[in-house]
């Protein structure tokens, strides 16, 4: 095994589970598996570009790969519809509502950018700096977007902006 392969192997063991979960939260299992393989391939080809904190960078790669896959699927669906004159296919739901139907409906009502920043914050557990790198925006923009998304999610859920006693300094305490 070459030094590069050894470094890549260690990287894959570090990132593969977070990236699998990132994709499982955003698409169906088959697409997630394909996109994970494509993401790892891009990481291998760009091994020298990967920063010391790799996950936000890898999430950007995964997001682009997923966008490509979704774009291909939409084209395929359109072609299938034309050929078979079928009713429009329903895109597979990436998330099982389970016992959290209300929350998933509230997330679905948000703008896609708001929902995504909330996912990165709560599910990927990224800091503001990492969210900014994953979305390729400034930290200030990430902080504002997260602040706004939290408020909109609370409104969508019919919850007060903040629990009692926590009305100040929200943005400063984002983490």
């Amino acid at each position: 095994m070459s030094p590069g392969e050894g470094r890549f192997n260690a990287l894959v063991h570090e990132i593969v589970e977070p990236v699998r979960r990132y994709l499982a939260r955003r698409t169906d299992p088959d697409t997630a598996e394909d996109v994970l393989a494509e993401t790892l391939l891009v990481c291998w080809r760009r091994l020298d570009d990967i920063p010391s904190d790799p996950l936000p960078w890898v999430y950007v790669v995964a997001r682009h790969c997923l966008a490509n896959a979704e774009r291909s699927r939409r084209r395929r669906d359109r072609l299938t519809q034309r050929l078979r004159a079928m009713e429009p296919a329903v895109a597979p739901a990436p998330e099982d509502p389970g016992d959290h139907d209300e929350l998933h409906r509230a997330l679905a009502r948000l703008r896609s950018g708001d929902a995504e920043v909330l996912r990165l914050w709560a599910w990927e557990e990224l800091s503001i700096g990492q969210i900014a790198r994953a979305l390729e925006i400034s930290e200030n923009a990430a902080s504002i977007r997260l602040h706004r998304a939290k408020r909109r999610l609370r409104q969508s859920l019919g919850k007060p902006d903040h629990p009692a006693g926590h009305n100040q300094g929200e943005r400063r305490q984002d983490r």
Partner: protein
Amino acid sequence: MTHPDDDLRSLLRGADPAARLAPLQPDRITAMANTATSQPTSASRPRSPRRPLLFGLAGAGGLAAAVIAVATLTPMATTAATRVTMGADPGLAAGSCPGVLPEYLADWKLAFQARAEKVTDDLVTLQVTEVFRGEPGAVVEVAGHELSDSDYSGFGFTPGDDYLITVMDAAPGDTPQIALCGFSGPASPELRAVYEAAFG
């Protein structure tokens, strides 16, 4: 010490669709890494003959007389990379370019966004970051880019910058062509909007 958004975060985490995802076995992860490292990392095919071309763009909507500056492109069948040559004919006048409209791009076979990784005097290496149509591969190499000139509606490359590129269909027996004249160029919200409308 509690955080004012702990309740919201807990609520979201409780609805995490990946919460029940079982971890992969270490040998499976190693196999995935090995699959990636077994793939080529860059183009290795010998260069194909290249020639600069002018393409007449015939079509409806007043485009019959429009001329587009193009660059030759050679898809690589055996690797993920694609070879491109930029070479606008000095006889092309900038005023002959048509407007950049989605309907002009819609039928072309390759469209992608890429980042300029390395720029030398005679070669630009692009890393494809998003594919709108076709299969350009992961890496596109552009030769002859120094010939591109704004007078011919070409554009230069800067390392780290992103570019949107479309490829025109080729005549039988000919190589495909990269469209210039504003159809390809530095990625901008305006050009991306055209691509989204044409290929989305």
